[in-house]
């Protein structure tokens, strides 16, 4: 078989990093391979992808030893456009990949660079949109597309350039399980049709085993596994040591345990009645929602992308005022609360910690909320120490001066700390699993579980089937702004029709 990419004893160190990010990698990728790359966050997976497409070393500063050959030529001797005409790279965040103002221009951008005729560009745009199933979206702007649609446009814009190698760097981390499945099936179809070579970075062990014919694991810059994708399961120790999810039948286990929980005898802590909400552009986000949440609940709000989950929880902490209906928080209308009062009752953790951290250091960040509410100095000190212990942030506080250099997982934990320090009874967490590896997700969820044991109410929005099946006590299913059902997780896991409705696939 023809070798299309070859790493020869390749090492790489970024100018700013202390250690080598990739350490003596030897790797051959053959034509027609479907290669899955796994490994914990920060292991060097994205760096590896950037090496294949020439971003490293052509456009990034750092130190190199060994070489990468693409189609038999050293990437250092080539120019960027020469490589990108044959190697396409798709990134994780669909938002920043969208450069132009609408779909058509976005796809045309790469094609113009190839110097194609206008007619050919038109044909290719139509062809690519047909493949990703978004024909008729040509004139949409990025603001009018959902995350999943944007990701498919990103794939289309690279596919239209007809690359021979397609690299995808965690392309599905923002998507609901069903859209995820769609992307994987799409890739499978493309691969068979055009005999592409695909390199895919993903945390989804099960998907990699199902679709890829070969898998490698990278941990701490070293390749520690290279072989059959289905053979991954024979190396559970290896998977465990690098913090990769080992597929197991969580749903079956959960149903078997069948602990009957959730008794609601007290007053609800949040009571929403007949909530409706319409956005200024006249899309109805919520329609007549009735929901009661009790102290000590652990609720997962699920539903496909754009079903109104975030809009709903924004009502619970007063960010949105219901246009119809009313919300009672602790038996008092939410409109009667002031912003500081709500902040001490309902905590809210955002999906992207970057949106939530706005101070320089960990200490400042944690104390910000308290100082803002004019707590006494010794109380601030006390709470700060307690929260640092609880979330194990002490060692980072000592090492890192600025929060800017923390990894995403730690930044997320810091964001949680900054919210928890106000001691809210209710904690709302918006999709904590985006772009995180399995180990980080389980650590984060463990913290939430402990908080729940202390009788805190947890409301979590998530697509991640593992979190739903393993941690939540109840699920609330939303579809197109309507509340389908609220029911215990065990019952949900038995009911396949509801699972389909909520775009849920067992982990």
């Amino acid at each position, binding site marked *: 078989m023809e070798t299309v990419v070859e790493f020869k004893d390749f090492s790489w160190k970024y100018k700013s990093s202390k250690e080598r990010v990739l350490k003596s990698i030897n790797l051959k990728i053959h034509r027609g391979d479907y290669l899955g790359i796994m490994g914990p966050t920060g292991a060097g997976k994205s760096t590896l992808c950037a090496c294949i497409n020439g971003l490293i070393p052509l456009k990034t500063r750092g130190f190199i030893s060994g070489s990468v050959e693409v189609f038999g030529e050293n990437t250092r001797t080539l120019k960027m*456009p020469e490589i990108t005409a044959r190697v396409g790279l798709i*990134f994780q965040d669909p938002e920043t990949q969208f450069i132009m103002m609408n779909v058509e221009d976005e796809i*045309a951008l790469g094609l113009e660079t190839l110097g194609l005729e206008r007619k050919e560009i038109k044909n290719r745009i139509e062809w690519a949109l047909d493949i990703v199933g978004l024909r008729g979206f040509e004139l949409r702007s990025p603001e009018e597309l959902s995350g999943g649609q944007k990701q498919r446009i990103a794939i289309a814009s690279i596919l239209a350039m007809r690359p021979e190698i397609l690299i995808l760097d965690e392309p599905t981390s923002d998507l609901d399980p069903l859209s995820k499945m769609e992307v994987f099936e799409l890739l499978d179809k493309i691969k068979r049709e055009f005999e592409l070579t695909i390199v895919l970075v993903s945390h989804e062990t099960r998907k990699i085993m199902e679709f890829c014919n070969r898998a490698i694991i990278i941990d701490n810059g070293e390749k520690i596994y290279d072989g059959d994708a289905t053979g991954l399961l024979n190396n559970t120790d290896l998977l465990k040591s690098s913090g990769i999810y080992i597929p197991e039948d969580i749903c079956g286990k959960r149903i078997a345990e069948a602990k009957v929980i959730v008794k609601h005898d007290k007053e609800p802590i949040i009571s929403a009645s007949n909530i409706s909400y319409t956005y200024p552009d006249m899309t109805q986000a919520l329609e007549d929602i009735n929901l009661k949440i009790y102290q000590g609940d652990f609720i997962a709000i699920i539903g496909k992308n754009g079903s109104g989950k975030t809009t709903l929880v924004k009502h619970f902490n007063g960010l949105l005022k219901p246009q119809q209906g009313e919300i009672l928080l602790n038996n008092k209308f939410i409109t009667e609360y002031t912003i500081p009062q709500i902040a001490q009752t309902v905590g*809210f953790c955002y999906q992207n910690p970057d949106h939530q951290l*706005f101070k320089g250091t960990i200490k400042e960040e944690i104390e910000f909320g308290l100082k803002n509410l004019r707590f006494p100095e010794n109380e601030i000190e006390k709470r700060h120490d307690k929260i640092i212990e609880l979330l194990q942030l002490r060692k980072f506080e000592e090492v890192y001066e600025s929060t800017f250099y923390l990894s995403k997982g730690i930044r997320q934990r810091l964001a949680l700390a900054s919210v928890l320090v106000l001691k809210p009874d209710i904690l709302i967490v918006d999709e904590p699993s985006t772009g995180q590896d399995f180990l980080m997700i389980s650590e984060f969820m463990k913290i939430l579980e402990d908080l729940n044991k202390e009788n805190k109410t947890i409301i979590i929005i998530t697509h991640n089937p593992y979190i739903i099946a393993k941690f939540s006590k109840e699920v609330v299913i939303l579809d197109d702004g309507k509340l389908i059902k609220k029911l215990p997780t065990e019952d949900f896991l038995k009911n396949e029709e509801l699972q389909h409705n909520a775009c849920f696939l067992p982990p």
Partner: protein
Amino acid sequence: MILDIILILLTKIPVFSKKFIKIVSGFLLANSSIFIAWCLFSQRPGSITYFETTIIIIKDIWIWNILITDQTIYYASRIALRSLIMFFLALMFFIGTTDRDLIHGLRSIKVPFTVCLVINLIFRGIAMFQTDFQIIKEAMQTRGVEFKRVSLPQKIRNFVSIFIAIIVLMFKKTEEMANSIESRGIPFRSKNRTIYHYFPLRKKDFAILVAILLFLAFSIYLRIYNYSLVNFILNFLSIILNFIPITLFW
């Protein structure tokens, strides 16, 4: 001015929508304040004085007289009319042109691709900035920060915090976008780059361009010889009127 309003109507936007009326009425209000300010502060002596009074006198330094004459009214309305015309022109431009039309247009008249890309990225960046700004503001509210009902210094401090978060985000996003652009193989100097949306200049465009240039030259001419448009038209008419008997005589 009238031409302007006709052009705006031609763009087929919902003129009676709430938003449009809000914008126009807001501007008219601002514009009338310009008119009033000119009336109050410009002390132009004129042939007819309508109103005269002294408000403040600070010894030999500054005297505020209100003097409203026919000349004041004339100048104030001139200034107000001027900004009104500029407003409607700008409004017409923004209503009739989307940001991508602008970029397609620029590329079609052979502005370098790099420049177009940069302009495009600015628009894209503004859109991202707005969403991020909103989210961060909400995130601060969930931590008990109030934006209404606080003192000005506190407000400023809050906004500084938002900008810290935005700068961090922008650093990350620009890097990702740069990578994404590079990965599409976009070299900044490419000879055989084609243009998908190509709108070449047609006869109509040239005609309008020439008309605009002529009008510009004409107004410069008026300015230099210190004519006002009204005087010019009157002169022009009188010349023609003088000619009519001659032609009739012939």
